[in-house]
C-alpha cells in the first residue's frame, strides 16, 4: 500500500502531521505497537528535518506484509558531510529553530537508532533523500 504526504519547509505548526497520519494507518493495520512507536519516532524526526532545513519535501510510504519503507525526499540545501550529520549533537539549525525546541542535533542519529535500515543520500543545493525501513516479521 502506498501513501504520500507533502511537507512544507518552515511550517513548524504542521510538523508531525504526516507522522501522525502514518501512525493511524499502522494502528489500523494491526502492526505491533513497538514497531509503530519506532516508525513514528523515526518519521517524525525526518519530517521535522524537512521542515527545519528544506524548502519543501514529500514523504512516500510503502507498506507490505514484510516491511514498512518510508522515503523522505526534500528540495533544500542538502548535507555537505553526511558522516558529520550522523554524529549525535551535531547541528546546523539556526538559534531561532533551537529556541522552538528543535535542532538539538539528534535527528538523524535518532532516526538511525529507531529504524531497522536507513539509507541517506544528498546533493548540496539540491536536496536530501532519507529512506528508512522497518521489518514487520522480526519473530522468525
Amino acid at each position, binding site marked *: *500500500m502506498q501513501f504520500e504526504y507533502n511537507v512544507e519547509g518552515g511550517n513548524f505548526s504542521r510538523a*508531525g502531521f504526516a*507522522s*501522525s497520519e502514518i*501512525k*493511524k*494507518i499502522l*494502528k*489500523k*493495520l*494491526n*502492526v505491533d*505497537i*513497538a514497531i*509503530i*512507536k519506532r516508525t*513514528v*519516532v523515526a518519521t*517524525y524526526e525526518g519530517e521535522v528535518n524537512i521542515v527545519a532545513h528544506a524548502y519543501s519535501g514529500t514523504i512516500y510510504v510503502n*507498506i*507490505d*506484509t514484510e516491511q514498512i519503507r518510508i522515503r523522505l525526499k526534500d528540495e533544500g540545501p542538502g548535507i555537505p558531510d553526511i558522516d558529520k550529520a550522523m554524529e549525535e549533537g551535531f547541528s546546523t539549525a539556526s538559534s531561532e529553530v533551537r529556541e522552538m525546541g528543535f535542532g538539538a542535533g539528534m535527528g538523524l542519529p535518532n532516526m538511525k537508532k529507531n529504524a531497522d535500515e536507513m539509507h541517506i543520500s544528498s546533493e548540496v543545493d539540491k536536496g536530501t533523500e532519507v529512506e528508512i525501513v522497518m521489518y*514487520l516479521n522480526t519473530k522468525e
Partner: protein
Amino acid sequence: MAKFFHHALKFRKEICIGCSHCMNVCPTQAIRIHGGKAELTDNRCIDCGKCYMVCPVGAIIVEQDDFSRIFDYTHRVALIPNILLGQFPAGVSISQICSVLMEAGFTHIFEVEHGTRVLEEAMKRMMDDRELPRPLISTFCPAIVRLIQVRFPMFTNNLMLLKAPLDIAAMYYRRKLEEEGADPDDTGVFYITPCAAKIAAIKSPVGEETSPISGVINMDFIYNKIYTKVKQGFTGKGSCCLPAMQPLQPEEMVWSLTEGESERMPGRTLAIDEVSNVIEFLEKMENEEISDIDFLELRACDQSCAGGILTSGNRFFTVERLRKRAEEAARGNDSVIYDTTGDCISDHSDYLNEHLKVTQIKPRAMDKLDEDMEQAMHKMRKVQEIMKDLPYVDCGICGSPTCNSLAEDIVQGEADVNQCIYVQKRWEQEGKLQPKESMEILKRIWGEDKF
C-alpha cells in the same frame, strides 16, 4: 468479539428518539444509529459519559445499585468523595449532609480522600524508580485508563499500577471495622459516585480481581435526598458522624480536582482534563513530539471529578467550594471538625501497601481493521476505495458518526454504502435507485416514525 468491559451506561431503547446527539459527541466513535435507536459498541465505549450529558430525553441511564441493598448488611458504610460536599452552597454543612445519610440508613460515613495519603507515598516511590517508563500516568480516572487501553495501547506500560483512593479508603475502613469486631461478610461499603466510569471500574476492575466496594450509589440520587431535607428545614444533629480520625490535609481535599495529583508529584508534571484535550495530547505524545515529562495527571471530565456526569452542582462552584475548604483548613479553620483521638491512616500503611497494587493493565487496541495484517491491508484498500464515493461531510445521516467510520463499517460488513445520502441522490439521478428504495433505507436507519 469477546466483551472486555462492564459498562455502567445503558441505553433505554424505549425512550431513545434516535436524535444522534450522542453519536456525534462520542470520543471513541462507539455509537451508531439503527432502526431509529442509538446502539453502543461495547468494546469501544470508555464510560466517559459524554453521551449521557447530551441526551435530550434521558434515554441514557447510569446503572446503580438499588438503595435498599445497603440493608443487606448490618454495617453500612457510605464512602463519600469530597466532591459531594462541593455540590451544595456554603450554607449546607457537612453535619447536615452526614445526618441525612445516617437517617437514610447508613451506619458509618467515611471520606474517600483519606485514601490519598498512602497512595501519594506509593506514587512517589514509583516516581523515584528510574527503571519505570516516563511519563508515568496516573490511573486515578478509570475512563482514562480505558481510553489508553483502547486508543493508546502503547502507553499501557506507562500507567501506574495502583488502586484509586476509594479502594484504599474502603480497604482501610473494612479492616478498621473488622478490628472492632464486625463480621466482614456483614459489612457493606457503598461508594457515592460522581461518574459512570467509577461504577464500571468497580463492577469489572481493570487488572484487579475483586473490589472492596459492595455497591455504588449515584451522586445525583443522594444529592436529591439531601437537598430535599435541607429545603424542608432539616438542620442536622450537631455532630457530623465522621469517625474519629486524623484530619484530612488541605492537599488531600483537592486530590480529585485538576492538578490535585500533579502538584504533589516530583519533577516535571502536567495535568490535563476533559477527554478531547487528553486525546489531543496523547496523540502528540505518541509521536514523541512531547518528551521530558515525568508525570501526567489525565482526567476525562472538564474540571476533573467536579464535572462528573452525576454531579448536580455547577462544576466551577464545586471547585471554588473545595478549594476554599482546603484554604481554610490550611489556616486551621476546616469546616469539618475531626475527633482527633482516632486513627492515622498511615499507621496502616503496611497492610494497605500490600494490597494497593494492580497486577496488570492490558492493551485492548480497537483501531485495527483486522487481526491479520494482510486482511487489514485488504480492508484498508476497500476503505480508501469507498471513501472516493463519500462526501467527507460527516453529516451522520448514514447512522455512522463520520464518512470514514461508515466506510469502515461497510468493510466490516455492518453497513452499506447506499446508507450515504449523497450516494443515494447520485444513484437516483443515475436511475440506479428508486426514491422509494432510498426512503426505505432511511427508515431502516432512522425509524419508520420519522418519515
